[in-house]
Each structure stands twice: as structure tokens, then as C-alpha cells.
């Protein structure tokens, strides 16, 4: 009896396109829900978490001297052999790299160089915009690595940004006070 009534109900539903109507209602609801698009690079930009492994940078110590002691452990551990270090000795007798090149075209951003470094001199930052028209430009030298921005203490948010055709995407604020992007994801 119950099954028969269910069947009749289904048939009546079909006759009045109940299933199609529910589908239409769903898409209509979605039409007026917030969009999840991040307007990169026109208006917004995703600032990665500080655990993110982006472009490498070399650190300086308190006196402004490069921290790296050119032990070449990072070059040894690098699985894709993309780090090249040439040491020299300065007038105080300290060992430093005269050449420190990372071929970011070959790098797989595993972060092993950061783990291996005994002097805490190299780390992977949050920068991820370094595309180039030539793979030669992706070989980054020592001074460029020193000039790269270090790790931001915060991350994991959308910040206001705008496209700058000359250089990178210009970030207008560093704090991810924008909004939490995950908020817009509908879970049904």
C-alpha cells in the first residue's frame, strides 16, 4: 500500500516536473550566492601561509653579513642538483660564498636545503610570482637571493593587490586583513 502510494507520488512528481524544478531551484540559489573567484591579479592576491615553500632567500646576520658559510651541504642534499656554491675567505678569515646560484627552473621546492643548512642561512619564502620568458633568467644569483623578501609572520588570506605590468603583482597591504576565502565555499 505504502509502496503503491510512493509510486503514485513519483508519477505525479514526474508529471509536474518536480525533479527538474528542484534542479532549477538549486541553480537559482547558487546564482545569488557569493562567488568564490579570487580576482587575482586585478584586485586580490592570495598570501600563502608561512609554511609555504616559495622562492628561496638568503639571510643576513645581525651585522649585516651573509649568514651562509659556504659549506655546500645544500648543494649536496639538493635532489635536482640546482644549487651551485663557490666559497671564498674574506679578510677576517671567515668562509662565505662568492657565488651562490639556484636554478629555480630545475628546483622542485622540496625545502631540503633549508633543513640541511647548519647556519640557518637559506630558507624558502612565500613569494610565488617569478615566471619569466627565458629559463636563463630563472638562475638566481647570490645578491638577488639576499634581496628577496623573507618570511612574513602571517599568511593564509586574501590581500588587496593590483596588477603592475612593469614588475610583479603589487600588494597594497601585507596583513591578510582582507577576508577569509574559505568562508565563501558552500558546503551542502
Amino acid at each position, binding site marked *: 500500500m505504502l509502496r503503491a502510494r510512493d509510486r503514485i507520488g513519483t508519477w505525479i512528481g514526474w508529471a509536474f516536473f518536480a525533479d*527538474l524544478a528542484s*534542479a*532549477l531551484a*538549486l*541553480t*537559482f540559489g*547558487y*546564482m*545569488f*550566492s*557569493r*562567488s*568564490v*573567484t579570487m*580576482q587575482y591579479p*586585478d584586485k586580490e592576491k592570495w598570501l600563502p601561509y608561512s609554511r609555504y615553500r616559495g622562492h628561496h632567500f638568503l639571510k643576513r646576520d645581525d651585522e649585516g653579513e651573509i649568514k651562509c658559510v659556504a659549506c655546500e651541504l645544500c648543494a649536496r642534499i639538493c635532489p635536482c642538483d640546482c644549487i651551485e656554491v663557490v666559497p671564498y675567505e674574506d679578510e677576517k678569515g671567515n668562509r662565505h660564498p662568492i657565488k651562490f646560484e639556484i636554478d629555480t627552473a630545475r628546483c622542485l621546492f622540496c625545502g631540503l636545503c633549508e633543513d640541511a643548512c647548519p647556519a640557518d642561512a637559506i630558507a624558502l619564502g612565500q613569494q610565488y610570482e617569478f615566471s619569466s620568458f627565458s629559463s636563463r633568467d630563472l638562475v638566481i644569483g647570490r645578491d638577488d637571493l639576499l634581496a628577496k623578501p623573507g618570511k612574513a609572520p602571517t599568511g593564509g588570506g586574501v590581500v588587496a593587490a593590483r596588477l603592475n605590468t612593469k614588475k610583479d603583482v603589487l600588494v597594497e597591504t601585507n596583513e591578510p586583513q582582507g577576508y577569509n576565502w574559505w568562508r*565563501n565555499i*558552500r558546503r551542502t
Partner: protein
Amino acid sequence: MELIVALGLIVFKVALLIAMLLLLPLPLTWVERKIAGHMQQRMGPMRVGWHGLLQPVADGIKLLTKEDHIPAEADRFLFKLAPILALAPPFVVFVAIPFGESISVLGNEISLYVSDMNVALLFVFSVIGLEVYGVIFGGWAANSKYAVLGSLRTCAQMISYEIPMGFAVIGVVMLAQSMSLLDIVRAQADVWNIVYQPIGFLVFFIAGLAEAQRIPFDLAEAEGDLGAGFHTEYSGIRFAFFMVSEYVIMLLVSVLAVILFFGGWNGVLIPLPPLLWFALKVALFIYLFMWFRFTFPRYRYDQLMSIGWKVLLPLSMANIILTGIAFI
């Protein structure tokens, strides 16, 4: 002198109509992409102009400057003829479509239609049937298996859906006792036909979806299985012709649905200018078309055929008989 003025008026109206129909696909593509985006929680075009408003212009420039490619083994004459054959009938049809009674400009009453034919409905259906030629020539001339498959599907689909569509509007003709679209709208001044002809409207609308080759009946260009159907091999401006004809047919089906079943320019409750009422109703139908497109999947080919012949045709026949009984 009077003859010249009358002729000049007709030429002006036709030119205005052609300009309107040629330009309307531009905002419609933008609207369609915006609706698609928002239904999928995206934003749609955003970068060209304010909220991507100039995107259709950019697309148009792109289409105009693209290489006009003709496949090596193609039938060149038919290949060039097909887009024109597909584009012309939807434009010709609009000659018979009224957009309102008349408006007064500088003290002169100017009617909002090019011609008031007494067999306008018949004219519309016969001319729109000619569009099949463009489709079948385009598919055949391209000498590509996808195009031939697509055009065969389209032909079968258009022919089998024109029959229930034609039968569905007979109920409306019976109610108005006239085939003139103007008289049909005048007959709906008090009560819209949708009240008397719900089944007729249903059949007409579903057949119209198939006629305009919109999802869920867009088997002609089923991009998933046929590339792009009959216009797979077309590029540049010739492809744009097919595209424009598709949008004009969508507009035509919306306009026909409004005229035949939703009272044309007769308003309810809110007193608005008749032309505005008409435009609002047509816009609603166009939105409905787009809403359907981004909600439903595509029907299988045999399902399409069985819906047309086994469901819509008997329903439209039953509608005629019911209307006849109600008359007695």
C-alpha cells in the same frame, strides 16, 4: 508623395530591425556568460570594461580578424552559402512579428510592426523551417564526419519538433479565430492564453527549446561528443553568422511564446508602457533559456526523438481536441 513616405517608413523600420537583431547577440552573450558564471559561483567576464561589458566587442573583433578557413575537400560554394542560409530566415521572420500596437512620433501614429499579415503565424513557421537548409548544407559541405553527424541530428530534430510546435499553436489560433499575430495579442487583452492553453504552452516551449537548439536539446552541437556539430569546421565570421542566427532564433522563440501565450504587450496590475511590458516578458523568457542551459544535462538522441514523437505530438493533438470540445 504619400507612397514614398510609406515606403521610406518601411525601409527605416526594416533597417532598424536588422540593426537591432544584429546587435542584440552582443549583450546576450555577455548576459549568458555572466549567468553561467554566477550559477557556477564564478564571476564570468570581468576584465574587459566594467564587469566585462566590452567582452562581446573584444570577441567580435577576434572573430572578424580570425583566419577564414575552408577545409581542403569542402564543397566551397555550399560552404560559403550555408551561414547565409542559416542567418537569413530568422531575420526574415521578424518582418511578421509585431512589437506593439503603435506609438505616436511628432503627432504621427507609427505602427510597431513591419507588416500585419493575416497568415503571420503560418509565415513564421514556414520561414523558420528554411533554417534547416543552412544547417544541413553547412554540415554536408564541410566534409567532416562530426559536421555530417551534427547536421543529420539537427535536421531530424528540427523536423520532428516543428510538428508538435505547429500543432501546439493551433489551440491559440482557435481561441483568437485568426492567424494574425496582432489579432492573437488583441484577443488576449483580458485573459492570457496561458490560462486556457497550459498544455499547449508546455508543448510549445519544449519544442521551442529544441528548435532553438538549446540545452537540454542541443544535440546538434553537443560539444562533448561532436566537437561543435554542424559548424565544427567553420571559423571566423562564418562561425559568427551561425552564432548570431542561434541567438536570433532564441529571441524569436521567446517573442513567439510571449505573443502566443503570455499576452504580448498586454500588462497586468502595473501600468507600464506596452513596449516595456513586452520587452520584460521576452527578457524573462531569455533568462529562462539560459537558466535551463546551465541546469540540465543533454538528452540522449533516442530520448530526444521519443520525447518528440511519443510525448509532445500526442499531447499537442490532445490539446487541439480539448480546445475543440471546450468550444462546443
